[in-house]
């Protein structure tokens, strides 16, 4: 830029330094988390956590369930079981809905085919004039059947 002053240049340099600093850290940490050592360390940390905090959590869950049972209250497990049964019912309803769609489509196709076959003789015979009442009389009883 032609209007660059020593101050703007200094500010730009500062910005560049900030970028270099962040890039450096990014590269170093980015490479660090990709190493098998980091994966191993995470696995070990999780193992430790599960054998301490995890077991406390499991014991707490067990105690809560026992308490709820004694109070004749449904536990989370029982409520989950009800929710699963509702989902299964939803799926069955969905399947029935799909079958209904098929039946409706089938009936629609059948109805169209029947209409086409019924209209075929009328098309082949001589068209009845609007005043030809005798022809209408002949057709009406057949239609009622």
């Amino acid at each position, binding site marked *: 830029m032609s209007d660059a*002053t*020593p*101050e*703007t240049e200094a*500010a*730009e340099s500062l*910005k560049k330094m*900030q970028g270099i600093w*962040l890039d450096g*850290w*990014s590269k170093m*940490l*980015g490479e660090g*988390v*990709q*190493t*098998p050592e*980091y*994966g*191993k360390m*995470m*696995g*070990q940390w*999780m*193992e430790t956590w*599960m054998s301490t905090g*995890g077991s406390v*959590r*499991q014991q707490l869950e067990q105690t809560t369930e026992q308490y709820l049972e004694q109070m004749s209250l449904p536990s*989370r497990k029982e*409520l*989950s079981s009800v*929710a*699963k049964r509702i*989902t299964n019912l*939803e*799926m069955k309803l*969905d399947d029935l809905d*799909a079958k209904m*769609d098929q039946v409706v489509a089938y009936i629609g196709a059948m109805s169209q085919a029947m209409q086409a076959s019924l209209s075929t003789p009328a098309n082949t015979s001589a068209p009845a004039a609007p005043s030809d009442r005798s022809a209408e009389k002949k057709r009406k009883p057949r239609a009622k059947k």
Partner: protein
Amino acid sequence: MTAFAQPTPTLNPSPKDGGMAELAQAFWEQALRWQTEGAKHVSESFEIELGQTPRDLIWTLNKAALYRYRPSRPASARHATPILLVYALINRPTIFDLRPGQSFVEFLRDAGFDVYLLDWGIPGPEDNDISLWEYTFEYLPRAVRKVLGASGAGKINMLGYCQGGLMALAYAAMFSEAPLRNLVVLTTPVDFSKTENDIFAVWLDKRYFDVDKLMDTLKCMPEGLILHGSKMLKPVENYLTTYKVLNDKMGSADAVQAWQALNRWTHEGQDLPGQVFRDWVKDLIWDNKLARGEVTWKGRAASLKNITVPVLNVLAEKDHIVPFANAASLKDLVGSADVRTEVIAGGHVGIMGGRAAKTRLWPAIVKWLEERSL
């Protein structure tokens, strides 16, 4: 929209003109204005609501919901084949519809597509036993049937993103008779034997990582762990640089809102059902079952060779979540003769939610689909 310049490039007066005291005063006045105005933009951006494009709920199953977006064009000006968007079970599908002007859904709709979205919903503790394959082979086909029913079309286009892309591939691989016209997958892992640059393969190495023990304890993968895990893939960028980027953008209300929309989406996570996480780790990362044709459901096997419809495989140039080689293998695994691999500049999330998406990814997808959806 308000925009103003950053303080540093316009320092005035210079020391030559008025001395250091005046320079410092001018600098601080401008910096104060920058921070005050910027803070106003940031506080306003907290009011952003994600997923604003008007839509109608047309089907639900358990927590899953299928939405149809209200079209912006008359039926005669729309493409005959509808499109179903399938997102991952991790995070919310609002990445497709961040905010007006930054929405893939809006872009597709305005390009004349009849757009549907399958939202898997937010799972509860009662869903921890649902497997990845149950979602894929029980929920997804039902949603497809509903799309056909609602649209009246004979076939659909399916677009899957990340894990949603893998589910779309598995669905198409399982049901060779599936009513698909085209398949688009974005940043989708498929061949887990390609472990080059795959950090998850290192972190979830079966020698150190006991997935069963972890899921027996936690029952699900909590959203906090998922968020922290994905941020730790690039710790400096996700914990520091992102806020530096916000600071650089504070002069523009629109840029701050765009940043905030993506940031909010990142932090709107959800727990992942325990069985889904087990399947992801054991069936895919460890055993690579989909690529090997070993995923089975009710006695049927899913073979990627069954996929014969046109496939668009989109990769992000700087994807740090899905390794390039893993996703790029798709062309060799499917049975389709029409497979196009498109590499888009940007990261795993940025290609869809970033401000450049509307000039890079979205037009590329629409162009490819328009050539095949008539």
